[in-house]
């Protein structure tokens, strides 16, 4: 028997594989392909206090081995989300992580408070979306602002708080440490890397928003490096993501120090990716006589393993 379960802030996930926010909706659509009961966790699309319309289209562009997106956090607002999406997810035996966004600290806190008595198991605070002008990334790029919002949310949150970090910073270890010092229960990274694409035939920006967030296979080495640096800097669990499409990709993140991983843009390339990654990790463990996945977390650098 192999044990694939992991523990994040006292919440047990049956395996370390979850969905990355915004790439899987609330699971309704993908449940036609994926048995949600098999996932370690479902992470929902960013939700704000009121409905947000998002950005004009084109919102996405394909790039070599990846994609740019500037959805702009279109979402129905917390009330509809609780009534419809959280109710849908209550039928499944999986951990529910709700991704929260806002324009001000007060908005984030209010969404967090509304979630207090719901079936959300954890909260992931998106302070790193590059596609909205106010809020979001501003909190994720300034250590003081990050400290403040982390503290305020931790005060009010009933569930464990995961701070989702932006890669668009010069010192990722510092940002992770700021979250830990101000009460975060975990950090997740990376959100998308700000990018741009130009249509040379039409001599225009491809995205209506001009810039967008890069995700997909192309960003994996950057993400693995950042997860390694963050995991070295903090004792709280680190959740890794960025370009995971195979079990081997996921294992790279785990060995770099991630206690769990998320699959994002790869869901678009193949809706069964999460299940294939779970099976592939199990196969790797069997083939290599690893009985407990926790033996792999940070195994390339943690002293206890060397």
């Amino acid at each position, binding site marked *: 028997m192999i044990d694939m379960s992991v523990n994040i802030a006292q919440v047990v996930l049956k395996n370390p594989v979850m969905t990355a926010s*915004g*790439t*899987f*909706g609330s699971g*309704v*659509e*993908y449940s*036609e392909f994926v048995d949600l009961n098999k996932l370690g966790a479902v992470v929902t*699309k960013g939700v704000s206090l009121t*409905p*947000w*319309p*998002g950005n004009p*289209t*084109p*919102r*996405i*562009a*394909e790039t*070599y*081995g*990846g*994609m740019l*997106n500037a*959805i702009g956090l*279109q*979402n*129905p*607002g917390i009330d*509809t989300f609780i009534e419809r999406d959280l109710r849908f997810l209550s039928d499944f035996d999986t951990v529910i992580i709700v991704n929260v966004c806002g324009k001000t600290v007060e908005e984030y806190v209010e969404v967090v408070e509304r979630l207090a008595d719901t079936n959300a198991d954890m909260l992931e605070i998106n302070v790193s979306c590059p596609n909205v002008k106010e809020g979001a990334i501003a909190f994720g790029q300034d250590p003081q602002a990050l400290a403040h919002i982390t503290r305020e949310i931790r005060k009010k949150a009933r569930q464990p708080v995961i701070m989702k970090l932006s890669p668009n910073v010069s010192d990722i270890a510092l940002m992770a440490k700021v979250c830990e010092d101000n009460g975060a229960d975990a950090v997740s990274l990376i959100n998308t890397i700000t990018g741009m694409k130009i249509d040379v035939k039409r001599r225009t920006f491809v995205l209506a928003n001009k810039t967008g967030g890069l995700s*997909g*296979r192309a960003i994996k080495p950057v993400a693995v490096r950042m997860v390694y640096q963050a995991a070295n800097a903090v004792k709280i669990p680190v959740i890794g993501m960025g370009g995971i499409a195979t079990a081997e990709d996921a294992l790279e993140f785990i060995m770099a120090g991630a206690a769990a991983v998320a699959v994002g*843009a*790869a*869901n*678009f*390339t*193949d*809706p069964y990716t999460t299940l294939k990654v779970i099976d592939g990790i199990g196969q790797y463990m069997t083939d290599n006589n690893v009985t407990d996945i926790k033996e792999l977390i940070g195994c390339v650098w943690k002293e206890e393993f060397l």
Partner: protein
Amino acid sequence: MWLSTNAAAGAIAGQFLSVFPNSDSMQLMRPLSICETDSSSAPGKIRLVYRVVGKGTEEFSHLSEHDSVVIIGPNGNGFFAPVKEKIGPDTRALLIGGGIGIPPMVELAKQLKCSVVTVAGYRSRNDMFLTKELEREGELVIATDDGSFGHLGTVTDAIEQNDIDADIIFACGPKPMLKAVAALSQKRGIPAYISMEERMACGIGACLSCVTPSSDIDDHSKVKNKRVCVDGPVFPASEVRL
């Protein structure tokens, strides 16, 4: 290309398939309209007709007989789902296709059990395709931008000049054409249903890449942004902002 697939059974004209390129360098599927279906033998067949414009369609053009390709579908609502009027044997349907918006008109003409006039617009005589299929399914009027075949001008010019009357309009094509069709529909008081195009990532309604501004509140986000991949691609012309 013809695909042998059990997705053919029950496919509705105006629906599309998500077709996945094989190359690792491409992250996203390509949406292609169902041009024709054939369910006479199991599993059934779907025909896709596409223009090579980039890497994905280039890859598809190298597929040969017995190769396989990953698809998801049929996706979207199709032409009949949003229709509020009754289509009877006496209904006069006007189908308008422009350029690469022409393929879904073939299956639509096949599935409509009423009188069908199709107006197809091409750049020039050399760009014409699917004309035999469309003639087989009803009356066909052709317009070309350069006048090298049929009417000189746009599809809406051809409709005005030929005095074509109808009870219902179905259209698919580039945005300027759809705008002209919406204007015509309003002027003449003929309801029009148009198929929209947007960049897609998931193709199943989860990612919110493909929205189009709508006049009424959408089901998903309650913000007047409908998802082309599941709420469409076909919308009443009066309900989308072009």
